[in-house]
């Protein structure tokens, strides 16, 4: 009876360890950000890309429409790749595209926009990357969808492609 009990305890113990290690091995060991979490947009003050005047976030997001925030930089190669898609997206009148220029040289950034076109209805400057941290971003390019309640409802890490473009269109319909 006692031996049976010991065997039972040992089996339970090893099964438990097996489940823990199995789950641990299957879990991804790199950072997988949550992209569907609803979050309030941060309140901030940032410099406008063209006028160099400070603008408040309330002023930027004052209309009752969907906003798309795109974090970009002239030195970022994938930003160049996604730019034609942003140009296409900018034709959609039901959304406003806001550019967030990340840790960039202003002259290079202006050259980039002059060369590839300006899809943004407004662009703000994030010289030190701290504004991007407020949005929960960790690199460029990144794109956020902000709904009419001024909540971030979706974020896309990396360059947007045709599939993402369609997803953005369907969400902001």
């Amino acid at each position: 009876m006692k031996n049976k009990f010991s065997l039972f305890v040992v089996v339970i113990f090893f099964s438990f360890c097996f489940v823990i290690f199995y789950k641990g091995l299957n879990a991804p060991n790199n950072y997988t950000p949550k992209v569907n979490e609803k979050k309030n947009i941060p309140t901030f003050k940032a410099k406008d890309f063209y006028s160099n005047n400070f603008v408040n976030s309330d002023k930027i997001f004052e209309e009752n429409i969907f906003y798309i925030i795109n974090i970009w930089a002239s030195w970022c190669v994938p930003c160049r790749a996604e730019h034609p898609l942003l140009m296409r997206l900018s034709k959609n009148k039901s959304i406003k595209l806001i550019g967030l220029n990340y840790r960039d040289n202003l002259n290079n950034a202006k050259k980039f926009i002059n060369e590839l076109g300006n899809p943004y209805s407004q662009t703000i400057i994030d010289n030190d990357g701290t504004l991007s941290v407020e949005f929960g971003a960790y690199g460029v390019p990144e794109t956020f969808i902000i709904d009419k309640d001024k909540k971030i409802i979706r974020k896309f890490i990396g360059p947007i492609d045709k599939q993402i473009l369609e997803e953005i269109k369907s969400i902001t319909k």
Partner: protein
Amino acid sequence: MKILKIAIIALLLMGFSNLKSNEKSDELKNKILKNIRCLICQGQSVYDSESEFSSSIKLIVDKKINDGLEEKEIYFYLREKYGDWIIYDPKLNKNTYILWFLPLLFFLVGGAIIYKKIQKKNEK
């Protein structure tokens, strides 16, 4: 002349206390940065990393310390933005119960077994 001397001593003392408080905030900053994971690096803390992401986080932590936020509040802020993964020290929650309590459970069960064995040996 006496007033001048007092003024110089007061200035020196003020400078010394400023230096001390700067040292303290630097210590706190380094402690926090060592406990924050660089999310775009492989196995590096923000303190060790020179990536764009890490330098932005360093600036944010510096700003929060200067704004008077405490260590826990800074961790809370970062968790809000990036989730639990950004902090090396895992917080006690439903996902980490096993991590926190399993070693304790093993210790108690192991201790009980050893105690029983010793007791039995003594009885013999």
